[in-house]
């Protein structure tokens, strides 16, 4: 059976394809996939999913390996082999708020998609906060008065700037990572290791 690779849809997908092509693999079928979520090539079975779902598919052995953002791995802590960083998808985690905003005297309200990362960040600072879980467009929360600040991933900082937010602190940096199912890596070693080694070599040479 061909190795099954789960890929994160969207921004990481494009960067992965460029990286993958650079390793000498044929990416034509992947580029022409249209809205299909599953693609078979001569060597691999690919499927595309949201980052957090990639970890779920890999954890449950549906995919042997997966490409996912490091932010997702820290937030959700899936039970997978978290092998190594890939040379794309670089971003960092930031605490941001409205320019010249004064922190309130009472407990702060922080909006984030990354509630676990936010919790650990403030725990390390020794501060109790109320965390408001949002699924997207987190920048709106301080603007509309739902929260005092946000914790979110930042790639270039443009979205924050355009929404009148400034970075108060940056505390983690990530890139895309290669993950593997704990059993597949062992029992499909002969098929997976050559691919993993090629990824590793490619990541090293960038």
């Amino acid at each position: 059976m061909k190795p099954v690779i789960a890929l994160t849809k969207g921004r990481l997908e494009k960067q992965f394809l460029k990286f993958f092509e650079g390793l000498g693999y044929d990416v034509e079928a992947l580029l022409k996939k249209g809205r299909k979520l599953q693609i078979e090539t001569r060597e691999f079975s690919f499927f595309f999913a949201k980052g957090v779902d990639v970890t779920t598919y890999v954890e449950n052995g549906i995919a042997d390996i997966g490409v996912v953002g490091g932010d997702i791995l820290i937030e959700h802590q899936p039970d997978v082999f978290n092998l190594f960083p890939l040379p794309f998808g670089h971003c960092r985690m930031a605490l941001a708020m409205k320019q010249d905003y004064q922190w309130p005297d009472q407990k702060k309200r922080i909006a984030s998609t990354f509630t676990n990362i936010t919790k650990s960040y403030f725990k390390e600072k020794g501060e109790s906060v109320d965390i408001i879980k949002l699924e997207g467009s987190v920048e709106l929360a301080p603007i509309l008065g739902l929260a005092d600040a946000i914790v979110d991933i930042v790639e270039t900082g443009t979205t924050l700037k355009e929404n009148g937010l400034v970075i108060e602190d940056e505390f983690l940096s990530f890139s895309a990572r290669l993950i593997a199912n704990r059993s597949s890596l062992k029992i499909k070693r002969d098929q997976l290791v050559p691919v993993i080694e090629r990824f590793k070599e490619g990541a090293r040479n960038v």
Partner: protein
Amino acid sequence: MFLPAGSQDETGIQISNRLRASEIFRRVTQKRDFQQISTPVVEYAHTFTNEVAGMDLHSMLKWFNGEGEIEVLRPDWTAAIARAIAGQHPSKQKWSYQGSVFRFDKEDTENRQAGIEIVHADRFFGEAESLLTAVTYLNNINIHSYVIELGHTGIFDALIAPFTFNKDDEEELLKAMHDKRSDLVEEIVGKSGNSELVKPLLALIDAYGSRDIIDQYRKRWADREDLTEILTHIEKLIDLLEASGVTEVIVDLGRVKNLPYYDGIMFRGFLTNDGSTCFSGGRYDRLYQQFEQTTSAVGLAFDVDELAKHMEPEQEPEKICIIASPETHAIAEKFRMEMEEQVVDIQYELKNQTTYHQIFQVVEENSQYKVVEK
């Protein structure tokens, strides 16, 4: 009425396979002279969270008892069994158990396990007997497509022993090795000023595969008697398994303990078709230190729910129906007793005749009741 997440009812093949798996386990272990033991489902949390057992309280189902102490639903068999058999006479060495463990951090809150523990016995004997019991059991439930993996906690421990790490870094390093996370291993080792350890640990992450790995590492560690002794030990177990007909044995020399009480050989069984883990276990001598005992202890536990999913359904015996009435039910019952090999159903009214191989009815003839084929 609804069920909480992680709980489920069982019917059909899943429950019949699981009960059969349990019954076969009882027979296999009884035949190999294991004594059965059971521990209560409710225990003090301390049995599992103490410094030696080291389990995480967060994932346990827990509450305060009337005296303010934390009680839990049994989250793990090994620590519970150690508590129970530490007080038994040392001549009793081989124990088997079956029952559920309960955890929040697994897909299913309740997981049925069947396992063995061998204590106070010769170390190699205990490991060999554990593995061979596992092989015999898998054969008996007709699961033949599996891979056994061997690892050893002593390899990582011996490699880092000459170096100094603070407790947090060591824990983080252990986790990074467990996740085969090469960049973090490099970072932790580098920042702790032990850069000469980077290369050996990165190589160890990739030291998994067939037994050829052992030959490679025997050469690499030629000047490390402690490590080559471990390799010889693992190789002896592979020889034993291969001589007993197990064709797929792999090693992971970079495997580290995921529970603090593991202390030596570690083993795990993977089912080949979907990679699920069907058993795991290993040596845990240090668990007995909390009872002031220096002894040998090794064991393994099967995931019975996982086995039940992979077992072929049992061949159905012939199924017979006897149509009776309140007046003739006793006659039908007598007839049923004579049918030892078949499944015999008694009905007052035939609802679905396609489910039966044969249908009988009780009829009255000359003031006598008799059972005749319909």
